[in-house]
């Protein structure tokens, strides 16, 4: 669950990245977030990930009020959010397996439980056979899918995706979107920031449109 209550983010006196933004993404809903570059998509994702803090208003994710979180509470809040980055953010000195296992190790999971979870996540994105490879040995699309596997391996309640299909050919993009839909069906809230209009048109989920830091259109719940 993600809820924004009149959230503003001001970077400099003259520059508001977000202005009085309010919306709610209930549990199990999937939505697209779109808008031109600089419209505030990245800022919105950063507020959810606690990379940035709102200047005013409240950001509530998984029943946690982000303005109240301090120190290690931030770390714990992040564990319940799976984020897929445009530039993957994989660690090049670790294998695909280790990259996907990382969130589980961080969360303190029993080592004997880790392999099953990692292989299940890799299987989901069709990369089980590349577990031993290193990220630099993979194509852009494969790296993107490893990023997806890493985001879903902890079974987070919220998944954020920043241009998750940017490096994927149409067929793989559709497969990744299918994974997201499947996850939303079991109760995961999913917010996908994208420019990809054909993808938006094809999947017909709720669409939030940002323009100059304001929410200018919200199609409401998925069709």
């Amino acid at each position: 669950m993600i809820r924004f209550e009149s959230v503003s983010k001001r970077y400099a006196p003259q520059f508001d990245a977000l202005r009085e933004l309010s919306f709610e993404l209930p549990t199990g809903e999937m939505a697209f977030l779109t808008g031109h570059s600089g419209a505030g998509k990245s800022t919105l994702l950063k507020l959810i990930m606690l990379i940035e803090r709102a200047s005013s208003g409240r950001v509530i994710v998984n029943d946690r009020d982000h303005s109240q979180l301090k120190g290690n509470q931030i770390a714990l809040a992040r564990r319940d959010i799976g984020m897929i980055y445009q530039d993957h953010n994989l660690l090049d000195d670790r294998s695909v397996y280790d990259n996907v296992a990382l969130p589980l190790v961080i969360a303190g999971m029993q080592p004997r439980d880790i392999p099953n979870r990692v292989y299940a996540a890799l299987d989901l994105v069709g990369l089980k056979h590349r577990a031993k490879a290193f990220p630099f040995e993979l194509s852009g699309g494969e790296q993107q899918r490893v990023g997806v596997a890493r985001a879903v391996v902890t079974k987070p309640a919220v998944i954020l995706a920043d241009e998750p299909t940017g490096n994927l050919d149409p067929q793989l993009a559709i497969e990744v979107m299918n994974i997201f839909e499947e996850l939303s069906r079991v109760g995961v809230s999913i917010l996908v920031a994208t420019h990809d209009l054909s993808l938006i048109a094809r999947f017909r989920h709720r669409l939030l449109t940002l323009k100059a830091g304001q929410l200018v259109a919200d199609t409401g719940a998925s069709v």
Partner: protein
Amino acid sequence: MNQPIAARGAERQSSTLSSRTTHWLQHHQREAKDSFRRLAQTPLATLMTVLVMTISLTLPLGLGKLLDDASVAASGWDGDARLSIYLKEDTPDTVQAEVLARAQALPGVKSARLISPDSALEEFRQQSGYGPALDQLGYNPLPPVLEVFPDNDASSSEMTSLRDQFAQWSEVALAEVDIAWVQRLQTILELGKRLLWAVGGALLLGGLLVVGNTIRLSIESRRDEIRVISLLGATHGFVRRPFIYMGVWCGLSAGVFTLIMVSSLTAWLNVPVVQMASLYSSNFSLSYPSFGTCLAVLAGSSFLGWLGAWLAVGRHLRELES
């Protein structure tokens, strides 16, 4: 992946305390190994750090031990200052006793004792090995002597004035202040100890900075990794741990090197030291670090590494977060 979200809570709670402790220990073990591996990947840089730390530990430890050994040796000698009052040779026994009583009553005198010519001769006979020669002499050439111990904290000027008082007595042939060179040596040793604290403190600070700098460089080179694991929900402790272990490994290695260095130096210096001591008919020699000292050095050097790493990590993590 189709497990409902609600099931996750139950899954987490099912882990018992002991299994969590085991897991925590395993994690630490892994981190310790991983940190060691990373240090071993850059052997030259690591060796430089460890050697600089070794030097910063060896100097204070080596000097401290040297001073300790010297203090023990010096305290073995009687460090009390005293006056030797030689009475005229023909002073009768009754007068000797009366002089002793007067000396004991003098302000500034802690105690005094009389060494009669006979007992002095006997002592000399035993210690000097000139027994037969003395027998040939046929008479005792030694005068009665008063050994006077002034109050403990008597300054050298008080000692001198005490000596001058004795010199005026008609029964006294010669009054002398025994130059308390042992006391001077002890003063010098005390000065040495203070200098050691100052220099040792500066050197240890240097060691701290070196390990801190090494950790700083390591943090710089792993900036991306720190950012990624932070975004994946790593706590401060999790992010810090590998660097802390790195510091502890550096410190521990430096401790081992330091003990090797100090022992080798002791062995190397002992040859001339023992030779010199034997010239002064002393069996003084430099001691090797005891088991307790070894443990303390290893613990101390590990702590130094830990502290350096902790300071560096704390500072740079704050930087990364801002």
